[in-house]
């Protein structure tokens, strides 16, 4: 499985986590933040990001506001109250998964 497929599965968690850290972000900013944090290892495609943002918005986890920036309209996403709780739950779920995955991949470490 390519890393992009693994990334796609955790995209909602990544978006929620980033928005938990920053008050509000716009689409392009999210792609660049992921690129910067992973030193370019994670390539977040727009084709995957925007449907995730719109889905999270429809589920009530994100809210949006628009601002005029340099003569154009910029749409910012931020977490709702429910989104904040979901971000914590998703991050915790992913962390547990990674711990268990580590045990499977390195059984010796798990026994220690």
């Amino acid at each position, binding site marked *: 499985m390519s890393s992009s497929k693994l990334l796609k599965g955790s995209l909602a968690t990544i978006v929620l986590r980033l928005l938990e850290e920053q008050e509000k972000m*716009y*689409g392009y900013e999210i792609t660049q933040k992921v690129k910067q944090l992973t030193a370019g290892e994670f390539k977040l*495609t*727009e084709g995957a990001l*925007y449907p995730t943002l719109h*889905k999270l918005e*429809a589920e009530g986890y994100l809210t949006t506001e628009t601002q005029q920036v340099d*003569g154009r*309209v910029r749409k910012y996403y931020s977490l709702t109250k429910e989104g904040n709780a979901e971000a914590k739950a998703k991050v915790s779920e992913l962390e547990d998964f990674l711990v268990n995955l580590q045990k499977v991949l390195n059984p010796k470490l798990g026994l220690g």
Partner: protein
Amino acid sequence: MSMNQHDIIGKYLQAIGVMTREFFYEMEDHILSSFENRKDKTQTLQEHIRDEVQPSFGGVKKILSIEKTQMNARRKLIWKRFFQILMSYLLGWPNMIITAGVSGVVYISSLYINNSKLFGISLALWFILVFVFMSRILWYSYQCKTKKKYYKTSQVYSVLGNDMSLFISIPNVVFQLFTLSGGSELLMKWVNSPILTIPGTVLLILFFISSQKLYKEEFRLQIQALN
């Protein structure tokens, strides 16, 4: 953003079939942000769109499918908000006042006109509302055209335009089904019965005022924010 850049992006998005204002603005900002941060500073905007932006979205089909997904997401939000408003009215004082008012009007007017006419009046109110919405939607599309916008409509108008046509069809289909199945007498009996006329009329009035509130929240706020 220069007018030239706006025109290049607008023509591109129009050519690939982006129709709605909200998605147009989001794409425009994304393309320009990406262009401003491009590695190769000799690259033109057209080249950047062709070589960087379009492939990163997964091609034209994917861009259009994102717009469609966003429309469906917006549809969910609009109806969720509509039912929130409706429930707040149903469980609050508007329901009590309207029910008391309608009951009073039904009993007083039953001396002069029959209940089916009263129900017909409230149904006409609903059709007027639908007509107002549809006119507003068509007017907006017309304005986009005359003001030479690169998009054709807004997502809110597009969603409501599709769904309102369904609301026009439903009462018509129900009446036709009753007539075809020989149940027109039964239908008239129901329509003449205050037990059904009163809650039916109250519900239609609550639908009407809920739609009005939604209209104020969704239509005007969106336009002010984006224009």
